[in-house]
Structure formats: C-alpha cells, structure tokens
C-alpha cells in the first residue's frame, strides 16, 4: 500500500534537486582549462573566485577545481569573474548537449 502523507500541515524536509536536475537548464556548459586555472597552475589552493561567486555553491574548490554539472545552471558568472580567463562557456549545439 502506498504510504500516505501523515503531515497535517505543509512541512518539508531538505533534499537536493527540489526543482529537478537544474543542469538541464543550461544552454552553455562551463569548461575549466587547467593550463590557465591559477589553482591548477600553482598546484595549490589559490584564487577560487569561481567558488566564491557561484550562486549555487556547486563549485568544489580543489586542485583541480570541479563543477557539479548535474546541477550547474550555466549562469556564466564563474567564467565572467575568473581572473585568468580559464573558464569558457561552451554553447550547446542546436537540439543537443
């Protein structure tokens, strides 16, 4: 039997993906060039402005820097703010990824 909703009022628990896989929202995907990314080039924790400015908090600040593409909405702030111009927003091809 399907478990019923036992809430008598609207109370929610936290979970990832309330709006689904928001990576689907993108029409351009951020790609990081490790040859330009300051943290990768210096091979230590440095810069990380992409981590600082990502509204979604889905940048993992490490060597290398990683972006969670399942949820990245493709806003492009990281690419815009990167002082080394190491991030490119690669436009998706028409009708595809």
């Amino acid at each position: 039997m399907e478990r019923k909703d036992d809430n008598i009022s609207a109370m929610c628990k936290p979970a990832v993906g309330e709006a689904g896989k928001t990576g689907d929202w993108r029409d351009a995907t951020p790609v990081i060039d490790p040859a330009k990314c300051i943290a990768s080039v210096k091979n230590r924790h440095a810069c990380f402005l992409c981590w600082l400015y990502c509204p979604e908090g889905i940048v993992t600040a490490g060597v290398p820097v990683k972006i969670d593409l399942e949820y990245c909405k493709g806003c492009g702030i990281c690419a815009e703010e990167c002082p080394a111009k190491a991030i490119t927003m690669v436009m998706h091809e028409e009708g595809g990824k």
Partner: protein
Amino acid sequence: MSGNIQIMTGNSAAAYGVKLCKVQVVSAYPITPQTSVTETIANWVERGELKAEYVRVESEHSVMTVCVAASTVGARVFTSTSSHGLLYMHEQLHWAAGSRLPIVICCVNRGVGAPWSIFNDQQDSIAQRDTGWIQIYCRDNQEILDSVIQAYRIAEEVYCPVMVCYDGFVLSHTMMPVEIPDAEKVCEYLPPYKPHTILCPEDPRNINPVIFPWQRRDAEGVLRDGYMDMRFKLQHALEASHDVIVRAGLEFAERFGRNHNGMLWDYRTDDAEVLIAGIGSIATEATAAADLLREEGIRAGVVGLRVYRPFPREEVREAFRSAPAIVVFEKDISYGYEGALCADIKAALYGTGIAAPIHNFIAGLGGRDVKASELAEAVRSSLSAIAGGTRERQTWLNCVTE
C-alpha cells in the same frame, strides 16, 4: 456555585480563563469593546502574576501573525479582538487554520462598517465562518471563562483554532457572578501543548511553502499531499472536532460541575408549537420571549446554538424534528441572501422530511436594542403569516424598511 466567586464583566471572565490556562504568549491591539481583556492581562503580566510574553503589536494583522508564529514554535497563545480587528486579520485567520494551529481567541462581537458601529451584532464572527475556525458562542460570563478553558483543550487535541465569541457590551461590559475554577484542577483538565510543527535547527523544516495542485513525491519517495488533499484534512478535522467538543464539555462538567451543553441547548422545547433559534444573547433574550408567549397560550421553545462551526447538523435535525414552525432570530445577514444561521438550518434540514415553515428575522444590527417583548411580537406575526400560507419570510425587526 461554590468556591471563589467574584462579580466581573465578560471581558474579565475571558481574561481569567486565559490566566488559568497559563498562556505563554499574548499579542494585543486595542479595539472597542474587547480592549479590557488584554488590559487585564497586561496588568497581570507586568505584576508578575502571569508569566507570559506580551507583544503590543501595531495592528490586528500582526496580532494574529504573532499568534501563528509563536504557536508554530510551540507556545500556547491568546489574543482577543472585535469587528474591524477581526476583519483586518481575516487573511491570517485562514492562514492559522491552514497551518493547523491550536490558537484560541476571543471575539467580542461588534458590528462592522461602513458606516462605523461600536455596538453589538454578530456580523464580524459569522462572516468568518468559512475560515476553518471552530466557533463557540457564549451566553453568560461564566460560560465565557469556562469556554476559554475548554477551547484550549479542544484546539490542542484537534489542531484547529478556536474562536470564543460573546456579545459586545451585552456580555463584555455587564457584571455577573463568576466562579473562578481552581488553578490546579484546570492544569489537570488541560495537558501541556504538544505542537505538531517542528521549527528547530536540529531538524530543519520548511513550513507552509507553495504547494502544488497535485500530489508530489518527496525525496524519500513518499507521495505527499496536493493542496486539495491538505484542505480535506482540515475539513475532516473540523467535522471530527464535534465529538471532541462534546467530550471536552462533559469532562469539564464532571470536574467543575458546570455543563454548558456542548453543541446546542434548548429551553421549553418538549411540547413546542413554535421553536425559536438563535446564537448568543439574542437566544437568551428569546427564552424570556418564550415565557411571555407561553403565558398567553403559545407553546414556544428556544434552541440556542452554542457551537456554530462545526455546524451541529445532527443536533439541529434532532432539535427541530417535530417543530411545527421555526423562527430564526439573528444579528447578522449574508447580503444578497438571508441570515447565515437561517440558511444553515434550512440546509441541515434538507432531505430529512422536516417540512416546517422557517421564518428569518434579522435583528439588532449595529446594537439596535432587542427586547423580549419585540421577539414575542415577531413570533406572533410569523405564526399568523404561516397560518396564511407564508412558508418562508425575511423580516428586519424594528427597522425602517420602506
């Protein structure tokens, strides 16, 4: 009566009820004629006789908002208001019921503008009948005090808010002897409030966000309610509260020796040829009218509704089962149709085969005085009209209608 009896106004009686229930948060905004309820409580709080947070908000909309938030976090809350104060918090009344919070308020019934009236009628609370609040109407000051206590018991069991209503000036400012129950006995009658809402950092929840029309699975795969399913739960809770209200009243009677008759009360109805229906002090006045009528040989009786929501459908059907004629007096009007009580009684009798003619009198709006003799005369006029074949009629009592 025995024990601690004091002469006090209806407003004081309400305040004593609140004090005995050890309410923890009170929000207050002044409006005639309820103001002295919250003034009395302010006095106790500032003297340390009642340990409560007292929030002197800047409007009635905020009054109810404070109640909602404090109740959500787990505190027992109270406020009182009247007329435009109740109207101003209308949006929040819906919010409180939808939140399933056991908030208790007193509504000291007063007419609504425009134009202004400070005097008594019941338009204010009757107009809130669709909000999902339980509504109890009191006949005397003892009942006010006792009903406040019962209200917390009921509210905290069914998780629905309760409005204890009583007529402005008629009861709020009239002195009557009232027995103040023993505080310990009240504690035994009223267990501590156990909130169903969770608002703590250790278990973060989002309460009352937007909800879709359809059901939707949560992260654990449980299919959760859509809007309408949740609304059905509120309706179901209101309907189920009927039995809780009756039981709370009977247990109160056992403990404190006073029975306020649960959903409705009756007076000299056994052999009645005409039954008068009403709510609150107009129904009390009708008992005097019934006595006058009986003196002249008309067998009149009174059925007074104590609880208006949930509407006591079964009790009403039972009470009016053998009535040859029904006359409804009320201090409210649903403009464009008829008195709300009359319409609700007619609807309750639908399909039962009860075919008595039902006459509606709109009386006492904006505090116009209603005398027992006028009620008696109204009943006499209805009985003649009924004899002449008029099965339904709406009359505005003692009012310029031409």
